[in-house]
């Protein structure tokens, strides 16, 4: 630490060059900050702590095939299942086909499966009592300026009512917040009663879309999943039961190998960055050879000089990188908002910062190593003589 000012002086020796290099590093880590969280979200699925004790039961054959209601009682009887309820896809749009609303009709206890949904008790009671009542996430309510008590018509792209009308009236009776550890995007959801949906629906045939169940103990996920699938084995409605995160991950992977695309972009970015900062460091050391020789004459060891040069390159990366990632943390929510929900960038979390700083350290050492070795091996006489 006592040599910090020496490293700093070396960096500031050519201000323009250092600043330009830092700006390049900044651009690279701005991208890293924006994209890495996307990559992580797509490769490992939702890691939200709140969902570890939930399983999702869907049709084995495809997402469009329903499951019989009778399955619910059978699933509830499996030991280890705390609570189970069903839901259906509604495919709602609000006013204009562009305004897609993520809407589900749900059974009476479905909301209890998600403790991260924070709905005031009074609003929850109002929801239970109101056949056409709906509860919506905070972000969704904000997007369309909905308030409690508003009467909202939603159109379903799939289900008309029995009278042929595709517009379903709802009344907003509750607005929920997404609690800690909630999955990203839960506050964009519109929930309403499955009973209303099923009774007024022209042709659903009383099937449900999927079941979600909560376990007593997350460790029993495999056993319970097998037990659930065994219930309908060899019938015409075989099921597939997976953990919520596996379900989300498989869905994300269908959109495409986003992880691979983002990984490839980042590889290109960092390859370029290594070349660029490597060049800067090589230049910096080349023009300072006489100075380094003087340092050695003063009694700095070869290792000491090596450490100085490495410190310089690591510091260069750290300053540019940290500013870049901080910028990403500021910009990311703006991008998500500005795109009107089209692009959802996850926030730059602690894991990301950790990974980013590790990458900065690694690249810093990598690009500093060759020039630093050169500085370490300097022969004082040759260097001072300019040979």
């Amino acid at each position, binding site marked *: 630490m006592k040599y910090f000012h020496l490293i700093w002086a070396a960096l500031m020796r050519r201000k*323009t060059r250092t600043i*330009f290099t830092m700006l390049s590093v900044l651009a690279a880590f701005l991208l890293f900050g924006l994209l890495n969280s996307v990559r992580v979200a797509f490769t490992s699925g939702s890691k939200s702590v709140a969902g570890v004790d939930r399983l999702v039961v869907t049709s084995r054959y495809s997402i469009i095939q329903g499951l019989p209601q009778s399955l619910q009682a059978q699933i509830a009887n499996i030991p280890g299942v705390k609570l189970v309820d069903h839901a259906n896809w509604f495919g709602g749009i609000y006013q204009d086909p562009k305004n897609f609303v993520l809407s589900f009709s749900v059974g009476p206890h479905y909301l209890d499966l998600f403790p991260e949904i924070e709905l005031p008790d009074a609003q929850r009671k109002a929801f239970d009592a109101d056949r056409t009542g709906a509860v919506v996430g905070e972000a969704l309510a904000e997007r369309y300026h909905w308030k409690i008590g508003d009467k909202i018509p939603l159109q379903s792209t799939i289900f008309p009512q029995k009278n042929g009308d595709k517009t379903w009236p709802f009344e907003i009776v509750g607005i929920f917040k997404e609690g800690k550890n909630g999955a990203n995007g839960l506050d964009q959801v519109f929930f309403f009663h499955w009973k209303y949906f099923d009774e007024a629906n022209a042709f659903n045939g009383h099937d449900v879309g999927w079941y979600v169940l909560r376990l007593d103990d997350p460790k029993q996920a495999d056993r319970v999943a097998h037990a659930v699938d065994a219930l309908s084995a060899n*019938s015409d409605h075989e099921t597939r039961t997976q953990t919520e995160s596996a379900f989300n991950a498989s869905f994300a992977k*269908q959109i495409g190998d986003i992880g691979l695309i983002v990984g490839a972009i980042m590889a290109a970015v960092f390859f370029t960055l290594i070349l660029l900062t490597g060049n800067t460091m090589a230049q910096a050391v080349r023009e300072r050879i006489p100075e380094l020789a003087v340092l050695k004459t003063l009694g700095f060891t070869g290792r000491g000089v090596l450490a100085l040069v490495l410190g310089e390159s690591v510091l260069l990366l750290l300053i540019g990188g940290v500013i870049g990632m901080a910028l990403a943390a500021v910009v990311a929510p703006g991008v998500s908002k500005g795109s009107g929900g089209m*692009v959802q960038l996850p926030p730059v979390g602690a894991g990301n910062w950790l990974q980013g700083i590790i990458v900065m350290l690694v690249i810093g050492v990598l690009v500093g190593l060759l020039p630093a070795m050169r500085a370490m091996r300097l022969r004082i006489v040759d260097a001072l003589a300019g040979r």
Partner: protein
Amino acid sequence: MKKFLFGLGLFAIVIAWLIVWTLLPWPVILALAIVLGLWLAFTRSGRRTLSVTRVGLSTLAQRLGSSSVIVIGIAGVVGVLVAMLAMGEGFQTTLRQTGSDDTAIVLRGGSQAELNSVLSRDNIDLIEQKPGVAHDAQGHPVASAELGVIANLPKKDDPTVEANVPIRGVGDEAWTLHPGIRIIEGRKFKPGLRELDVGQGAQKQFAGLEIGKQLRLSGQEWTIVGVFASNDAYESELWGDAESVASAYRRGSSRQSVTVKLAQPSAFDQFKAALMADPTLKVDVSTTREYFNKQSEGLTKVIRVVGITVGVIMAIGAIFGALNTMFAAVATRAREIATLRALGFRGWPVVVSVMLETMLLALAGGVLGALVVWLIFNGYTASTLGANFSQLVFQFRVTPALLWTGIKWALAIGFIGGLFPAVRAARLPVTTALREL
């Protein structure tokens, strides 16, 4: 103050040039390049510039490391940009080619996609009888009532991922309606049997779709009997007999969409008016071209926006890299440039020669990046979730227009990266520069 105004002026030039540059069509740029070439070859100041540039280029070999920063940096930007745009282009083209102006698709009103739609047998019969629909030699309307369902199939490159693969139940007329589709292996499915033909794209992306293999759908075994090719969105699908698919998925006599052949493209208005006038029908109708174009809009836009955003951020990084390299290059050549100035060379040839050198390096980078992307990604097959909640297989398309876009970006980066060092070189006081080292 004067220095500040000068800097501001340079900045304004950069912005103005960027705007003009993005708007210029290629013939104008070609003309500009020719004018520049003529100036270099035939005027006094041009020839001076050329000779200064030659000196600069001849020392390039000594600065190979730092010059490669410009080339590789810009190659990276162009590569990522062109690859992303090629993905968007491929997706869009696949859907665009699927539609045509002389076929129309009818869905239940407000459905937006086939998956959401339902049409009863009565409705279908009514739709097929409307004026504007083409008839075959026997006088039957050329129309296909189709049914779209989804099956979960593992992906080939990652069997742990089960993807939604679209299965289309079609009538006999479908083969006539979609003339671009041809069987390339095996045979067509037989009506009434549980047989499927698979699209070439689907076969490449998903496991277990070889001829003779059995597939379990809705609890029943189906056999793959043929492979078809069409170079459009249908290639992502599996086709079977509509009756068989409907019975397997318990859809009875209802279907999801009706595609009709129009008597001629202009008959669409007549057909649409007839459908709208019928009070018993609540349907949406569009030409298939319009229908598929609409499906491509959202994702194409997202890919473009993301690609350009990433490209811009990378380009900013690359500009600073280029600036660094060129400032260093100018600094090492300061004495030589000062000597030229002392001999009576004016500032212009120096500015232009430094710019030319940077832009040549940038061009090399742009060509390298574009070439690498073209070699790797042209025709690369990928798939994503399409409008019907099922996989759409498409190929990246690295078109000449995209390659040109990439090269334009490279030259823009080179211009900015070269301008400031060039001006510094030209404005260096001769006496100071000569005294340096």
